[in-house]
């Protein structure tokens, strides 16, 4: 009898399933609960494991207007970038984002220095307008983030949001807040499997369950080091499926912020003859960055351009057909 032509790689471990959002019955106010992870196969290989959840797209929204926002993006988000709540609602609507990733960049001491109170008000206002959970990011200034994010965490206690990022040098304050208030956390490591693992151990050591951690492997855009994160993610995911539970967390990839820093997404056609329509080029830069990350195992993509979100959302729907 002919041997069947198939090689199956069976996983020994599933990726942790992480829940974002809590409804009224579980102590929050979210109407829509989102789940990621839970899979026991490499991306979209349905025949050899379970893949219970589709990857999610979170629209990146900021609390301040970026001064060097690429013109393609500026045109697409006209009239929205100075109104974060309207911006978020628009992205959840027609663009079809699954949730919002709010970056509190304006709390940075050098870029607006907004207070914790302002941040809390914004997040509370936003939660009233959307039914889904949120991703809330600090400004990257460690001390300020510890103040601001702890305050937001406390004010949204029980909502089961996703907060980020914690790094090896600064993880205790925010982790403690997320434990106390029932949220999830993003653990950031600089394109390094060992640091990712180490940080997850540190976080779980102080008491956060492993199914409340998301790994940010720190990606580069298409053409700007994308392949480093791509391979780190494949390595980590393979290790996780082979049984390493300290790497068995969903991945979040900050696609929008990286892709729109690329020259190819910023430069007009007149400045760069032969490079084609600048709008499409920028959108496709974000789209192709996102797709490569999906192939490497991304569970949450953060994105910016509404058209790029639409294209990737459709791609995910197609990829999830089994």
């Amino acid at each position, binding site marked *: 009898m002919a041997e069947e032509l198939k090689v199956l790689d069976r996983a020994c471990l599933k990726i942790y399933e992480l829940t974002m959002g809590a409804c009224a019955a579980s102590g929050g106010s979210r109407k829509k609960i989102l789940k990621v992870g839970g899979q026991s196969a490499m991306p979209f290989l349905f025949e050899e494991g379970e893949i219970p959840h589709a990857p999610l797209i979170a629209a990146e929204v900021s609390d301040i207007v970026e001064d060097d926002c690429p013109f393609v993006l500026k045109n697409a988000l006209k009239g929205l970038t100075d109104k974060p709540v309207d911006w978020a609602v628009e992205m959840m609507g027609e663009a079809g984002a699954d949730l919002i990733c709010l970056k509190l960049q304006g709390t940075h001491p050098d870029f607006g220095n907004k207070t914790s109170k302002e941040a809390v008000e914004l997040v509370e206002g936003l939660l009233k307008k959307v039914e889904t959970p949120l991703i809330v990011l600090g400004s990257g200034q460690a001390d300020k983030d510890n103040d601001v994010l702890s305050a937001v965490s406390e004010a949204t206690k029980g909502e089961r949001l996703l907060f980020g990022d914690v790094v090896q040098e600064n993880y205790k304050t925010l982790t403690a807040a997320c434990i106390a208030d029932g949220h999830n956390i993003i653990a950031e490591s600089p394109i390094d499997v060992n640091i990712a693992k180490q940080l997850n151990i540190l976080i779980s050591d102080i008491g956060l369950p492993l199914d409340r951690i998301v790994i940010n492997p720190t990606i580069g855009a298409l053409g700007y080091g994308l392949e480093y994160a791509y391979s780190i993610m494949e390595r980590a995911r393979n290790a996780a499926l082979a049984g390493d539970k300290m790497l068995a967390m969903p991945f979040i990839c900050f696609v929008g912020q990286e892709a729109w820093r690329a020259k190819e997404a910023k430069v007009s056609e007149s400045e760069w003859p032969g490079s084609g329509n600048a709008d499409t080029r920028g959108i496709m830069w974000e789209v192709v960055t996102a797709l490569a990350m999906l192939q490497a195992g991304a569970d949450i993509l953060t994105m910016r351009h509404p058209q790029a979100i639409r294209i990737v959302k459709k791609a995910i729907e197609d990829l999830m*057909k089994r």
Partner: protein
Amino acid sequence: MALSGLDIYKLLPKTNCKKCGFQTCLAFAMQLAKKAIPLDKCPFVTPEVRAVLEQASQPAIRLVEIGSGEAKSSIGNETVLFRHEEKFHHPTAIGFILEDVLSESELNKAIEEINKCTFERVGQKIEVNLVALKETKSKDSKFINALKILLKKTTLGLVLMPKTTETLKTALEICASQKPLVYCSENSLLDSFATIAGNFRVPLAFRGSSVSELSSLTKKIVSRVPDIVLDVHSEKMSDYLWQLTQLRRLSIKKNERSVGFPTMVIADLTDEAASVVEASMFIAKYASIVLLKTRKPEYVLPLLTLRQNIFTDPQKPLQVEPAVYTIGAADDRSPVLITTNFSLTYYTVLGEIETSRIPSHLICVDTEGMSVLTAWAAEKFNAEKVADTLIKFKLEEKVRHKNLIIPGYVSMMSGDLEEKSGWKILVGPREAAGLPSYLKNL
């Protein structure tokens, strides 16, 4: 797939007769495994064993060549499933499908557009590889005429997609020496196409809708045409991915010869963005050829860039030549910046300086391709190294000031560096993205 010394030993006579010049059959087997000596040193190897050993020395996935001269594409011969395990060897050949109904001027225009799809990124030329010509109707075929135009206008590798054996024969009489890839679109014709392609010694591609179908068909034709390309097709994206993954796994892990060939995907959806989505997915995993319809640079450039990323050798980061680079119309008053020779770092910094439109000098230190922080940790980018580089590249003769801008990440070296070099050190931003505003406010 290579056999180990022990595997080979099992196939030898095990008499230790020493005729091969070795003390034991095992010692001989070990040398054979390293390919250090030829098999015929042992006079007792049977023809059957010889066949097994020769088979095993073939690559798991056959290397197929399309085109000739500089534009030749080599595809296949991959050895791993994930690039971090070693590397991917042969970048996906990217090409465009043209239909023979196009008029001469339309064809010329199309080829012009295709020829423009060449770009430079991080010091490498990235370009498209193939032009496929598709016969649309067999009556009053314009295929041969169109082919003649293509042959005149492009040196890219050709993919011939004729509908009949007559067209195929005529076409190959004209261009077999260019080593085109023949594509069989109708599996009822596969048998005759295989014979013709084999006679002309050109590779053959055909479509199958499952791994087992592809496997059974290659078995039928491989003796006539050894260079085969498998066109994977499905109604569902995830099934494409599954088939491509299975083909790669079966050949590499199981040494399944009947599927040990390069693969191709035709991503010719009319929705251009959707075809880029497909192409991206399968450039990453695991198409050796991707054929597109859209020729617009805004769609093609991201795909070429993705291919460049995925097929970069993970062990060998791209490096640039250590030197002082002049950006814009820099003169002896322009600012001087310093960074490493890791190409990604260099080109990112270069891009941001260009964006700032401030003419500058950028010194690239030989850090053996390490990025700023890694090089700092490995002492390839410290005060001493930088001070030496300033002398080596004779910076004092190039500019009349002594101000040096260093990356924010290595601000810790500034005191030491001022002392060692005698230059005034200015600490720049940590990320290259901060350079335009930094330089403008200098």
